[in-house]
């Protein structure tokens, strides 16, 4: 039996879909059988982030309506052995799927996969309730901004009310220079406010934009810091203890490059 993990945030644009894609691809890279489910009906995006947009035939609404078998709707990635996507419907109404249908879908998926990663839409309404309906664990994504942290707090409250205990936090798009100058909340500042367990931190990295342009998950890029950050997060999900990456080393600086040269990672 696999694990069903929902990736959520409340606020839009903090990196939920990118996080889902990287966690999914990272888990598949180290040998897990993974399916990612896009529940953002009407605004699907996980397909383009993963570079699988040209291969969609059926979607999640077709599955719950019985227009096709579950197997037929799953898109198999060609780069990674056991990575699949169940895409959202783009043209249907967002009420096309119910909470009970989501629960059943998650049960069916976790019988076959090691990890079922659910990409939740922004907001706290129908789409959110659907996305969390079949989930056992939750990852909350935020950025070091007042609006994103506020929404994360609200989402954590709603998850706990729905009996998804101990959601874990990812702080995305941290800019170490701004944190050092006191113009961006630090990891500690955010944890103090939210009182939740930290799953990982991801530096703001141009590589994310570039890899999204290409439809290739950053986690597969061995060179980049954001890729390293996601690889660490993936290891923690599988139960390994990995120390937080240092935000102070700029790969562009001579010192950072020298250090990474000697250590083989950064």
């Amino acid at each position: 039996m696999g694990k069903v993990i929902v990736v959520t945030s409340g606020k839009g644009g903090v990196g939920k879909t990118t996080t889902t894609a990287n966690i999914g691809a990272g888990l598949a890279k180290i040998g897990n059988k993974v399916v990612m489910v896009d529940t953002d009906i009407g605004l699907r995006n996980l397909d383009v982030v993963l570079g699988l947009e040209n291969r969609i035939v059926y979607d999640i609404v077709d599955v719950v309506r019985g227009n096709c078998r579950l197997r037929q709707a799953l898109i198999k990635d060609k780069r990674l052995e056991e990575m699949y996507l169940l895409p959202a419907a783009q043209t249907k109404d967002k009420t096309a799927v119910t909470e009970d249908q989501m629960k059943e879908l998650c049960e069916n998926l976790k019988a076959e996969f090691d990890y079922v990663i659910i990409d939740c839409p922004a907001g706290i309404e129908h789409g959110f309730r659907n996305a969390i309906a079949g989930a056992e664990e939750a990852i909350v994504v935020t950025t070091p901004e007042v609006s994103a942290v506020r929404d994360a707090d609200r989402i954590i409250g709603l998850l706990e009310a729905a009996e998804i205990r101990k959601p874990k936090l990812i702080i995305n798009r941290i800019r170490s220079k701004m944190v050092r100058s006191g113009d961006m909340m630090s990891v500690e500042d955010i944890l103090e406010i939210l009182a939740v367990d930290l799953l990982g931190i991801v530096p703001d990295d141009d590589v994310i934009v570039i890899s999204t342009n290409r439809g290739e998950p950053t986690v597969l890029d061995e060179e980049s810091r954001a890729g390293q950050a996601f690889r660490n997060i993936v290891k923690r999900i599988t139960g390994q203890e990995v120390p937080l990456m240092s935000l102070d080393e700029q790969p562009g600086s001579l010192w950072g490059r020298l250090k990474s040269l000697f250590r083989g990672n950064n």
Partner: protein
Amino acid sequence: MGVIEALGRFFGKDNSTLSKNVAKERLRLVLINDRVDISDSMMHSLRNDIIEVICKYMEIDEKALEVTLSKEDDGVALVANIPIIKVKRQNA
């Protein structure tokens, strides 16, 4: 305390003006309200009722009156800051 922050203090840079501290303080306040889930209209009614009661006994500066929620060590407190102009003489 980071080195930069320590240097900033040493050279007299006021920590409370760092924008991250402004963000933290604003978040702290907004989350107190979000978490207790009291609507704005309820806070408004509460404020008006408090004014009504106090006005029986004192003349107060209604414009400067502040009723807010604040986080205490274990729980949330209702804090009212009510500037008194003068106490009414009771002619009982």
